[in-house]
């Protein structure tokens, strides 16, 4: 049986619910994982005590974990994480950590896993145009795409033990620059509404923003929109040269569905497409496709959602 270790996903100093999905992935690899929580304050690990299916919870406590530094986190975790297959989230930060931790242990890393079957791991390659299945001989670090595996339950009562650790921080944060907009970032959102060049002008993105505010969603954009309009920043871009996202719901408005855009969002759980061109490739990937102009569809969507969410 493979020993497994889950590194809890830490977002804004707390255990993120995605961690429960990593526990399910560990079971698929064959064992109840030890859940290691990197934290500066051991009480953070209480956020993992309720997960079902964990062997135990280990709070790895160190000031190193106050801010993210790849070298510091990898060394401080390496010192206390038991031997076995280590599982992290495939968020950008945790993929970075996974790679650094694997190198520290002299093992390989398998990123963006979306399926585990019979010990084999499957990840998308070529931006999701194909899948690659690999086998492991020996230990490895594995990052798992969020929103793919079922979350383990919340009716556990795990013992939380605390172990002090330390590591070598290599970099220093100079400043944090809060996003100018208070709206949630596409990389962190459960719901995203994105606009493409079909929106006609950047000013029309206000219609997307209104719906985003109703849903607590992020606003994204296609590369065509970002390249065409200076007002639409690259930080909003979803796609191969932007951000890869897999929210629960992705609403694509005026986006044709170029392969470069699909690469960034095709693994979203549900996709709604609104486009006036019935032949737009995006419709082949949509769970709900509406052939209409955004001018026709968005007001209806907005008013229905406002009523529903009220």
């Amino acid at each position, binding site marked *: 049986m493979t020993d497994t270790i889950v590194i809890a996903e830490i977002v*804004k100093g707390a255990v993120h619910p995605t961690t429960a999905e990593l526990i399910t992935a560990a079971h698929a690899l064959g064992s109840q994982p030890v859940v290691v929580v990197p934290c500066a304050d051991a009480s953070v690990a209480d956020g993992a005590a309720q997960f079902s299916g964990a062997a135990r919870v280990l709070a790895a406590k160190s000031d190193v974990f106050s801010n*993210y530094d*790849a*070298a510091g986190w990898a060394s401080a975790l390496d010192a206390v994480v038991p031997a076995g297959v280590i599982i992290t989230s495939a968020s*950008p930060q945790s993929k*970075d950590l996974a*790679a*650094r931790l*694997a*190198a520290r242990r*002299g*093992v*390989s*890393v398998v*990123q963006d896993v979306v399926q585990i079957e019979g010990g*084999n791991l*499957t*990840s998308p*390659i*070529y*931006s999701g*145009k*194909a*899948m*690659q*299945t*690999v*086998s*492991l001989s020996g230990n490895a670090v594995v990052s798992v795409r969020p929103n793919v595996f079922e979350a383990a339950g919340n009716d556990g009562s795990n013992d939380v033990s605390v172990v002090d650790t330390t590591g070598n921080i*290599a*970099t*220093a944060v*100079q*400043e*944090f620059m809060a*996003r100018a907009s208070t709206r949630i*970032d596409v990389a962190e959102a459960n*719901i995203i509404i994105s606009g493409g060049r079909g929106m006609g002008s950047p000013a029309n993105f206000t219609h997307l923003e209104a719906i985003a505010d109703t849903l607590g969603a992020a606003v994204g954009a296609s590369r065509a929109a970002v390249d065409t309009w200076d007002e639409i920043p690259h930080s909003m871009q979803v796609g*191969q*040269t932007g951000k*890869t996202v897999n929210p629960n*719901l992705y609403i694509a408005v005026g986006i044709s569905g170029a392969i470069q855009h699909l*690469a960034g969002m*095709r693994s979203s759980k*549900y996709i*709604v497409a609104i486009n006036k061109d019935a032949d737009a490739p995006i*419709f082949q990937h*949509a769970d*709900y*496709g*509406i*052939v*209409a*102009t955004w001018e026709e569809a968005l*007001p*209806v*969507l907005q008013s*229905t959602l406002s009523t*529903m*969410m009220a």
Partner: protein
Amino acid sequence: MANIIVLVKQVPDTNARIVLSGDRVDLSAVKKVMSPYDEFAVETALQHRESSGGEVTAITVGGSGADKVLKDAKAIGVDHIIRIDCEAQIDSNALQSILASVISNLGAEVVYCGKSAADTGAGSTGPGLAERLGWASVSNTTSVTFGDQLSVVTPSSGGNARINVPLPAVISCDKGDIKARKPNVKGIMQAKKAQVDVRSVDVPASTVSVVAHSMPPAKPAGKSYQGGAAAAEVAQLLRDEANVI
């Protein structure tokens, strides 16, 4: 004077259709290009040279077919090109090991690479190489300012963080706001004549092996509607059927 390294990788054109032959992808008919994020790494390396003086060495791992990506880098403006000779499919541990074995002897103070390669999308090489070299690393940077230390900008929860990075370091570059320069005629002529410095290395055994490639599972056909009024029904289905709002 800075000794700067940039890692480049040849990948299938990102607009190419990927097809299978048996249970492996068949790339024989696909055009190969420099991985898009590597273009930003090359640009950042050249800007570093322009800021501090010094030389830029582009390195790739592959068979002789990979020389083209080095020539492309040369045409854009790097000074030296090195190919670590290894045609085999290897795992991240083997790849980072051979990169570290070559780079540790080059006296470099910084390595730039793309945030991920467009084929695997893994993004493991930069941070993994840094760990093997014992260097600092920051991934997914959108801006780099040069000096005795680097000052980089990278996404952080709720915004961005500006981070001081002591050298030596490995920086993996996202697109950011810089424009990657294109080769000019003089560069292309020089690249034609340039010699690739080919290095042979011992390649450690891989512990991750490819079992099969496959096409992504086909999505069942969705529901389609005509006209904007249908948005009301779709909104209701998102709650009642999909349970996502």
